[in-house]
């Protein structure tokens, strides 16, 4: 093994990275490949560059998966979740409004009264639900508002949000859905495959 100074070693490592990253001109590539033919340290530097780069790539994929699986209020993704919560609020409001409307049409005349028909065994007796609905609506709103700052609805939004999430897919621009502000781009498929491959390999190792 030939002796190399740290500076020479760093230079060789940098050349190896540029080689595998295809950041060489044709002349530089030919020169480095000649070096590969003659020098074992150069060959090992290429192997090392691939290892490091793959570790970085997988680390990035793991980071993406970790962030996706365990959102926290400290994440710089708040605006996205805020939007989701806002859509959840609007969805809940729409449902409740629908309930009110239906009640208005179907049992509107009976609101606040005992059903006259109940006396002769007709339609089931119903009291108005207005106070209950008002309380429920109030509680729902409060939960949603609190949720935007980190309660269970925050986690719910994160857990339920997927590519098919209607609250996202229908109305938000695709760019907003796919790319978080200030975050990295979504992990490509091969990264995810690499991570899952590694995980299964790791679990196999443990079993052995």
């Amino acid at each position: 093994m030939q002796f190399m100074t740290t500076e020479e070693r760093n230079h060789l490592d940098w050349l190896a990275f540029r080689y595998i990253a295809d950041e060489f001109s044709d002349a530089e590539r030919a020169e480095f490949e000649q070096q590969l033919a003659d020098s074992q340290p150069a060959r090992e530097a290429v192997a090392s560059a691939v290892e490091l780069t793959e570790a970085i790539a997988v680390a990035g994929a793991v980071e993406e998966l970790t962030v996706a699986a365990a959102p926290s209020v400290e994440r710089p993704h708040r605006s996205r979740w805020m939007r989701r919560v806002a859509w959840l609020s609007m969805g809940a409001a729409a449902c409740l409004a629908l309930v009110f409307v239906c009640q208005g049409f179907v049992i509107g005349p009976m609101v606040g009264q005992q059903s006259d028909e109940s006396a002769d065994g007709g339609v089931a007796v119903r009291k108005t639900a207005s106070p209950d609905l008002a309380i429920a609506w109030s509680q729902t709103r409060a939960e949603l508002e609190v949720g935007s700052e980190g309660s269970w609805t925050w986690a719910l939004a994160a857990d339920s949000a997927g590519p098919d999430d209607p609250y996202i897919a229908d109305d938000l621009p695709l760019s907003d859905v796919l790319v978080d502000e200030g975050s990295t781009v979504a992990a490509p498929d091969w990264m995810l495959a690499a991570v899952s491959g590694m995980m299964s390999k790791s679990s196999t190792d443990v079993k052995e």
Partner: protein
Amino acid sequence: MTAEDEGKLDPAIVARLYVEYGDELKRFLLGVLRDSQLASDVLQAAFVKLVERGHETREESRKAWLFRVAYNEAMAIRRRQAVGDKVVRRLAWTRDSSTGSADAPLVRLEAVEQVRAALDELPAEQRQVVRMRIYEDKTFAVIAEELGIPLGTALGRMRTALAKLRKKLAGHNED
């Protein structure tokens, strides 16, 4: 009659060399060929040659011999298939999603954890260049343009970042 009597290297020695150098050699071949399947084929061919001709080599130089044989084989394949400059202009770590997913990555979980922790410790501007180069697969020229910095600065940030990450990884490998 032993393997050496037949003019072949003892299979036990070949197996040990495979365990010792197989992954590193595969990474090297991936760097040269940028194709996982071709790298696997050449790796296999190199070890077949080791079985047949390994007894002619000195023990202390077998690793270098193996790498040299593999490199020559890889270059021959590149010439034959003209993959050198025309077909494969991709990063070595880029995997073909249709075929590459079957391969386990050539890094250990512990190494990934080390690198991940080291990435967090990098200054933001270095981490940004690493992210753009490796995760977003942008060239340094594009990175420099997008960040509004000289090309040399982008290269310098990447080089410094890689040196730090490598140091962390090397420290882990020595443990």
